[in-house]
């Protein structure tokens, strides 16, 4: 249960609002990898002078990100992963003999097996070797990217939408709504992640992408919802919101135009990091035997299969493990960079 936790576990049951905002903020801040470039320690420095361009949070953030090599590398990796997921066969061609072997069954290259080549170690012809069934491992690992990306984006995407809606309602309208939604979040949050995932998934006979995603969605929404709620609460008190209200702006307009554009920043940052966490969680569940089922191809399943032969064939663990780690790392770095770029305090 403690093996795979959503970041944000520092929240106690029903934290004081201001403290919740501070705590969550601190945790997000804790994800920051880059020391801020040159702290301007004197008030004098930042004041005075007229800015030449329209400053906006996202515009500024983009400008800053564009110049950071770490961000560019991570973004490049992301693009690469997406490309691999879209056309794994194309990338498999990079290793000619791998592709030749796998394409003996063009409809399902990743599943073409030759038992006589079971657990062959990596070689010049077959970069990642073979798995237990005798399938080319390079091809399989590449194909596994698809599932990971889909689950990652699907789960996080839906969670963000849920968090947006519920967080806005809870934060903006408060009181009864807040209590109900808050309690709901607490309940789901009290369920230990891995364990609950284990239990819920063992209930299901057929564990395809949607089933696994659904369980992960249910386990992940409370943290994002809380973040959104904190943002909305903080934004609600702002003077410019009061002013807008006095001018007759509708609730929807206030949310859409005044609160959300800035308030959604911490949610986006955490969502980015979440993609990595969710994919990791899926792998963990597969490892436990309750994740995706065959014939799905997932890094988690591959790692789970490698268990029995750790000593004799470590390549079975290492390649999907490495891909998984790099994948997660990529999203964590992206999230970190986003966080630094969006933090007004680091200006």
């Amino acid at each position, binding site marked *: *249960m*403690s*093996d*795979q*936790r959503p970041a944000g*576990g*520092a*929240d*106690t*049951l*029903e934290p004081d609002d201001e403290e919740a905002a*501070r*705590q969550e903020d*601190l*945790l997000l*801040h*804790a*994800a*920051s*990898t*880059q*020391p801020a470039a040159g*702290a301007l320690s004197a008030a004098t420095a930042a004041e005075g002078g007229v800015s030449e361009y329209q400053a906006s949070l996202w515009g500024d953030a983009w400008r800053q990100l564009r110049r950071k090599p770490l961000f560019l590398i991570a973004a490049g990796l992301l693009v690469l992963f997406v490309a691999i997921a879209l056309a794994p066969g194309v990338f498999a061609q990079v290793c000619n003999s791998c592709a030749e072997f796998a394409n003996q069954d063009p409809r399902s290259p990743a599943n073409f097996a030759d038992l006589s080549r079971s657990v062959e170690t990596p070689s010049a012809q077959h970069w990642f070797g073979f798995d237990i069934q005798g399938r080319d491992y390079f091809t399989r690992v590449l194909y596994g990217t698809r599932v990971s990306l889909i689950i990652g984006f699907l789960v996080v995407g839906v969670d963000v939408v849920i968090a947006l809606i519920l967080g806005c309602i809870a934060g903006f309208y408060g009181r009864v709504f807040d209590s109900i939604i808050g*309690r*709901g979040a*607490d*309940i*789901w949050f*009290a*369920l*230990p992640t891995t*364990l609950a995932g*284990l*239990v*819920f998934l*063992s*209930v299901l*006979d057929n564990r395809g992408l949607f089933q696994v995603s659904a369980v992960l969605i249910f386990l992940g929404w409370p943290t994002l919802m809380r973040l959104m709620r904190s943002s909305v609460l903080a934004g609600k008190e702002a003077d410019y919101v009061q002013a807008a209200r006095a001018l007759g702006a509708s609730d929807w307009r206030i949310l859409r135009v005044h609160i959300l554009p800035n308030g959604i920043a911490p949610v986006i940052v955490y969502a980015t990091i979440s993609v*990595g966490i969710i994919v*990791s969680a899926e*792998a*963990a569940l597969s*490892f*436990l035997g*309750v994740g995706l089922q065959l014939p799905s191809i997932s890094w988690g399943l591959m*790692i789970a299969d*490698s268990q029995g032969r*750790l*000593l004799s064939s*470590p390549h079975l*663990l290492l390649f999907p*493990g490495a891909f*998984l*780690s*790099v994948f*997660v*790392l990529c999203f*964590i*770095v992206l999230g*970190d960079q986003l966080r630094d770029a969006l933090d007004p305090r680091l200006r």
Partner: protein
Amino acid sequence: MGRYVARRLLQAIPVFFGATFIVFAMVYLIPGDPIRALNGERPISESAQAVLRDRYNLDDPLVVQYAKYVGGLVTGDFGETFRGQPVWDIIKEKFPVTAKLALAAFIFEGVLGLLAGILAGLRRGSFMDNLVLVSTTFIVAIPVFVLGFVAQLVLGVQVGWFPIAGIQEGWYSYILPAMVLGSLSLVYIARLTRTSLVENLRSDYIRTAEAKGLPRRRVVGRHALRNSLIPVVTFLGVDLGTLMAGAIITEGIFNIPGVGREVFLAVGSQEYAVVVGIVTAGILIFILMNLVVDLFYAVLDPRIRYE
């Protein structure tokens, strides 16, 4: 302060029932007939089945089963396995192992995490700081089970420092699994401490403390740390609760006979009384730790005390 305590307590109750009910309901939906599974291929007479079903309340509607279960909980009765073993006994037997593992992981992550975080926070931008940040990023990225296997391979087999599976007397065999278990939280603690410290060092009251002519040691050690550690201590408390509730994956990798592994096995063999029992105990511990942390938080931060 009393109101604060009372409020937290009241809020904890529906959460407990809600969470446990969800788990109970989920388990209730596990397909297959546990009675039949219990007896394998031997046929069982209808009347015998009926007796068993009645004994385990299998024919009652969900809500009633849940109510009876909670009623039993109050008296410490976590139900029985289908072979007649009280679940409570199982918990009692396996829990100390998990607790030991949890404690070891907690000490590991706490001490190392705090140290790393403080060093990094005090020397922001330095080599130490960057080292901490980079290494923690990598640790976080590698999934726990991969980390566990790699640790087994490298530290257990190749270098031979630690046993790779099972538990022996004493603490030595707990070290490797504890390190793996605590790795993720270690990262959070280090980062959280660092960030908190950096932020607090920037605040106005630190400037005042310096203006008072206090030595640096005191400014940092007393003023800054006291404030910075508040969120960290909170996190530590909650994490201990989570650790105590069991760690399935780590126990699985290292073959440790704790409650985590027990649950895993129980799911496989459809002993749902065990599953529900252990999960319920876990939720209970988690909620309790949260409460303790909330109270402790009020002690640490006087601003909270008077609301």
